[in-house]
């Protein structure tokens, strides 16, 4: 069946079957804290069980009012001109706020309404401060820090919660207001849920030692990594300011290397195109802001529909399901489940799996994972992804440090990582074939999402128990810069390694994966060709059969700072053919091959080819090799006529295999 016909057939099948799938879930992409409301005793004496929850502003806080620290004008910077005035910086920051404010399906609204003359550092004082002052210990580019409740709480009129001698709650108001005109915000007295944000500040590092020159406007964009577009940086921070966590999405489509705004460190300050792109929200950013602040969810107030708004529940539906680890047989906390457009492959949104809890010491404020039992900490592996109406393919990738580590996302991801759950291959949901042992990891089942209809629940994913043959250790470097177009890289997988996966038994060869990257964040690492083929090695004579590949893909799209899989359509047939060939002595090796684009210029401001990951550089510039240099990596500059053995590195290409279905 042709690909498009297959997609239409699958879509029809999806439509027929989807009505039977009904599961309720909660999970998400939020910055998380704990909730100790009505907490039960923990297994640790003296401690209580704390639920892990997201943070958000209460509707009474909307619009969130910010104050601009006016004690630095112009804005200092470590590089000199162009120098921003305070007014220019304020206008840029409001532009960043407006990116979020203008989402028609989200009722979040953040605006700069005043100034504060704070000569010190921002903090918890009921003044939502924007400042270019940072502490000596602050080494990041910028940050947004939030004070929120960890327990449901009713505040009485006149209560001075931040202990500054001034009332912070008033029964005379129904929305946050600076009642007494002293610069800080008073909240309406009354009940607030755990997770409610009371104060948020954003700080931007301009220190001479490790700060940035913040700029505004296209003409100021340059390749100096210490010069950054203020709107791009601030838009990211203001996502945190209303509760959004970091995401894994650093490549929107096969043609657009830009990341979601909430990807950590996604502003490549050496790439003007990246900085420009990151001024605007991506579909994932819009989806999660709308999910947490759904427009049209109330009949009055900020959440009610105003001119220009669109009701979230009329525009968005949910993909819901549970993620389980196929080898550990556990629900996964903090797996990144993503949705791409089924027809275009364009990334749309993602969410983290899992409902989690931890043990909390009410005396010290410590939370801990010392109850070393995943069943205690991980209640389920449920996830939700808010997406506009459409047809989607759903996939999952591990939060394994590439492109982002769990520690930098949220507590749920940290818990999953703590229990060793992030050791699986990226794969797609394929409905009835979704098992720990499955044949085609790249097979996509279409998931139909229609707002208001519960068609897209029960999208349950089990990670595969695939076995990777990796002739490499941890990544030390990327390369190779300035190689000529058409350069070929190859990794040898000797027959003995292949037969060792399931000695005496069958084998599925499911695919290959390439560790790839780019010099410029706005660029997609597209390679001319990826293939799996056979070859021989006799001393220095290497012959790789590029003319008769077992599997081949032209214009292979890699991933930025991650392994990019190329999954095969016929793993059984390839596995059987390879084993038969080995048995007959016809196959001595498999070769995983990747070719750099054959034409120049390479895209991007750096003009560099797409990179591949290397293990092995040696000290002092690279870390000591955690794996020997195997001599199984090769390269060719003449289309494969001559191959050179790489003696300094192991190329990080992986062969993905599995035992056949039904075999233990």
């Amino acid at each position, binding site marked *: 069946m042709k690909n498009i016909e297959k997609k239409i057939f699958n879509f029809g099948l999806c439509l027929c079957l989807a009505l039977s799938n009904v599961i309720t879930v909660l999970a998400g992409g939020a910055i998380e804290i704990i909730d100790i409301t009505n907490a039960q005793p923990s297994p640790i004496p003296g401690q209580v069980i704390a639920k892990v929850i997201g943070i958000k502003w209460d509707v009474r806080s909307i619009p969130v009012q910010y104050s601009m620290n006016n004690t630095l004008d112009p804005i200092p910077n470590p590089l000199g001109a162009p120098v921003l005035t305070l007014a220019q910086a304020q206008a840029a920051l409001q532009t960043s706020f407006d990116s979020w404010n203008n989402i028609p399906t989200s009722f979040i609204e953040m605006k700069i309404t005043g100034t504060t003359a704070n000569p010190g550092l921002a903090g918890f004082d009921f003044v939502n401060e924007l400042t270019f002052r940072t502490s000596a210990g602050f080494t990041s580019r910028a940050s947004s820090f939030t004070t929120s409740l960890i327990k449901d709480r009713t505040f009485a009129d006149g209560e001075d919660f931040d202990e500054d001698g001034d009332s912070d709650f008033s029964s005379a108001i129904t929305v946050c207001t600076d009642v007494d005109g002293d610069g800080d915000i008073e909240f309406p007295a009354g009940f607030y849920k755990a997770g409610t944000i009371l104060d948020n500040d954003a700080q931007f590092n301009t220190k001479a030692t490790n700060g940035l020159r913040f700029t505004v406007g296209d003409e100021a964009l340059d390749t100096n990594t210490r010069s950054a577009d203020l709107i791009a940086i601030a838009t990211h921070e203001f996502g945190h300011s209303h509760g959004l966590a970091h995401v894994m999405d650093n490549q929107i489509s096969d043609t657009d290397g830009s990341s979601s705004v909430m990807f950590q460190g996604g502003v490549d300050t050496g790439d003007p195109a990246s900085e420009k792109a990151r001024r605007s929200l991506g579909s994932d950013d819009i989806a999660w802001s709308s999910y947490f602040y759904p427009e049209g969810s109330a009949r009055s107030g900020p959440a009610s529909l105003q001119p220009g708004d669109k009701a979230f529940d009329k525009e968005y539906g949910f993909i819901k399901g549970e993620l389980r680890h196929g080898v550990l047989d556990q629900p996964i906390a903090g797996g990144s489940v993503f949705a791409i457009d089924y027809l275009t492959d364009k990334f749309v949104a993602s969410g983290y799996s899992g409902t989690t809890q931890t043990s909390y010491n009410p005396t010290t*404020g410590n939370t801990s994972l010392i109850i070393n039992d995943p069943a205690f900490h991980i209640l389920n592996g449920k996830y939700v992804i808010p997406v506009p109406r459409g047809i989607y393919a759903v996939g999952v990738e591990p939060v394994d440090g590439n492109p982002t580590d769990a520690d930098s996302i949220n507590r749920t991801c940290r818990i999953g990582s703590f229990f060793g759950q992030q050791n699986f291959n990226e794969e797609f949901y394929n409905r009835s074939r979704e098992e720990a042992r499955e044949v085609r990891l790249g097979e996509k089942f279409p998931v139909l999402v229609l707002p208001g209809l519960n068609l897209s629940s029960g999208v349950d994913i089990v990670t595969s128990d695939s076995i990777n043959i990796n002739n490499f250790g941890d990544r030390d470097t990327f390369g190779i810069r300035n190689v000529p177009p058409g350069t070929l890289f190859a990794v040898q997988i000797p027959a003995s390694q292949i037969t060792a996966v399931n000695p005496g038994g069958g084998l599925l060869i499911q695919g290959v994966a390439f560790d790839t990257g780019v010099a410029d964040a706005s660029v997609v690492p597209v390679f001319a060709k990826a293939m799996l083929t056979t070859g021989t090695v006799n001393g220095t004579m290497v012959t790789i059969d590029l003319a008769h590949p077992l599997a081949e893909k032209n214009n292979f799209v890699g991933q930025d700072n991650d392994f990019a899989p190329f999954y095969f359509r016929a793993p059984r047939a390839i596995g059987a053919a390879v084993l038969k060939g080995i048995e007959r002595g016809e196959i001595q090796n498999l070769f995983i091959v990747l070719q750099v684009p054959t034409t120049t210029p390479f895209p991007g401001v750096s003009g560099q080819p797409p990179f591949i990951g290397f293990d092995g550089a040696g000290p*002092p510039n690279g870390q000591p090799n*955690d794996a020997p240099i195997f001599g199984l990596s090769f390269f060719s500059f003449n289309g494969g006529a001559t191959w050179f053995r790489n003696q300094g590195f192991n190329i990080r290409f992986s062969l993905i295999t599995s035992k056949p279905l039904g075999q233990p």
Partner: protein
Amino acid sequence: MKKLFALSGVFMIVLVIAGLWATKADNLNDVQQTVNPVATSLGTDMPMRQMVEESSSIVIGQCAETKSKWVGRSLVTEATISVEEAFKGDAAAGTQVTVELPGGIDPNRKVAMTIAGAPHISPGEKVFLFLFRPDDGANSYSVMGFAQGKYSVGQANDGEEVVTRDMSSAPLQKGAGLTRGNLQAIPLSKFKEWVKAISSSN
């Protein structure tokens, strides 16, 4: 004929370039031809060399306890680290150092301060830390590069200690061979060698 001539010319150029590269092939084994990941799109990271050079203290230790406190109007978490091994600075093995982490929980007021991407250290966690004193005479250290200077020390399948970004109670994969997924940890012994090599080359 002109076309044939032109094609021959192109072919010759390709041959020459291929030949030039063939002679340079061995150089590809040279680290100079590769790119430190921090020079790629991940440009926000601090190179290891810079982290070693700018750290005032580099230690391996175990977190004895953590407690949150207010510093001005900011909540911070103080992690007390029992130093097991020191590579740089005045924090000797057998002593304790205090590392101040942004954010924390106030158990009395029942509030938390959170900062996305900030480092976390848990009681009982073994850590490899790159530290600096934010102010002259400060009693506590900060982590270099926001969270970048904090590594967890875990165990591999064979019991060897390994360095990893995220704290893990489960055995981790290291090196080459048959693996699940592609998450790989670095042997602690190798990581130490790396830090020492950079330190000694300065």
